């Protein structure tokens, strides 16, 4: 199945899909946050699709895109026909709510925890949405592009050690 056929099949089923892209031959599509689980379920179950492997799930922060600053990216792989697809969901940073993919892909569990840990995306329906890599006491989301390169408020740095005391 080519990207064009895949695109036709998907847009017939989900007319709300937008921002189709084919950079480096990888079909990429944007889905509204309310519909992401439905789309993932369809991609998983439909006999023509069979995207049953979640290669990666991560977040991106676009500070300049007002109202849709945070993005969640799913990389899916059809291992039978060896086709890949990339699904993107955009949410505002003020209310970063995305439905969890764990009902479809159990492997999404830790990846969503990581995405929550670094980008603060609130995965609705996740069984255990807690920090996975950073310390539990951390009260910010470090991969968001909202911090200066060198944070002057940090107290844990010993400037003497870096020759700038």
């Amino acid at each position, binding site marked *: 199945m080519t990207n064009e056929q895949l695109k036709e099949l998907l847009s017939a089923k989900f007319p709300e899909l937008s921002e189709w892209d084919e950079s480096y031959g990888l079909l990429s599509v944007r889905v509204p946050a309310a519909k992401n689980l439905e789309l993932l379920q369809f991609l998983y179950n439909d006999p023509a699709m069979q995207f049953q492997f979640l290669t990666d799930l991560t977040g991106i922060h676009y500070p300049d895109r007002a109202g849709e600053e945070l993005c969640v990216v799913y990389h899916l792989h059809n291992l039978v026909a060896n086709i890949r697809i990339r699904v993107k969901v955009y949410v505002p940073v003020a209310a970063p709510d995305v439905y969890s993919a764990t009902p479809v892909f159990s492997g999404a569990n830790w990846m969503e925890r990581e995405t929550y840990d670094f980008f603060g995306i609130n995965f609705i329906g996740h069984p255990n949405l807690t920090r996975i*890599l950073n*310390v539990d006491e951390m009260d910010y989301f*470090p991969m968001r592009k909202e911090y200066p390169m060198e*944070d002057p408020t940090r107290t*844990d*740095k*010993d400037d003497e*050690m870096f020759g700038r005391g």
Partner: protein
Amino acid sequence: MGRPVQYNENSKVILADIPEGYSGEGFMATKFDQVIGLARANSLWPLPFATSCCGIEFMATMGANYDLARFGSERMGFTPRQCDMLLVAGTIAKKMAPILRQVYLQMAEPRWVIAIGACASSGGIFDSYPVLQGIDQVIPVDVYVPGCPPRPEGILDGVLKLQDIVKHESLRRRHSEQYKGLLSEYGIQ
């Protein structure tokens, strides 16, 4: 006919000097400080806490070429209960800090710590939110070995520096107000 065991006069092995004391025929009197310090210094039991590339250099240090065993640290113990020299070799993430601290707390007195390499000493190049900026933020450190990573010679030098500290340390130092003050700074009783 030679004796079955001969004293090799050409040996380059340097024996530890006899500590200062008063000796006469058949006896020698000296201070516990010196004898016990000498014994401790030449039988430090290393506990490697290796998390990254400095750990590889430490492995070379323990290996045949550099052979830390020459200085009495023959056997690594992988339990804090038996060891008295904690060698922290590598980047310590903030999430690892409580574990490192627990390992230190489980060691019995007397205990010494060597921070091997830039990361353990200061956070190194990882001037970043998840990395502890030097293990001396959570446990007291006796010797810092610079380098990224330090060569095995550097680690050996660090161990020798520590031996110096151990040799000349008063047995009562660990009961001193200064030492107790140091530990209480770290919240350790």
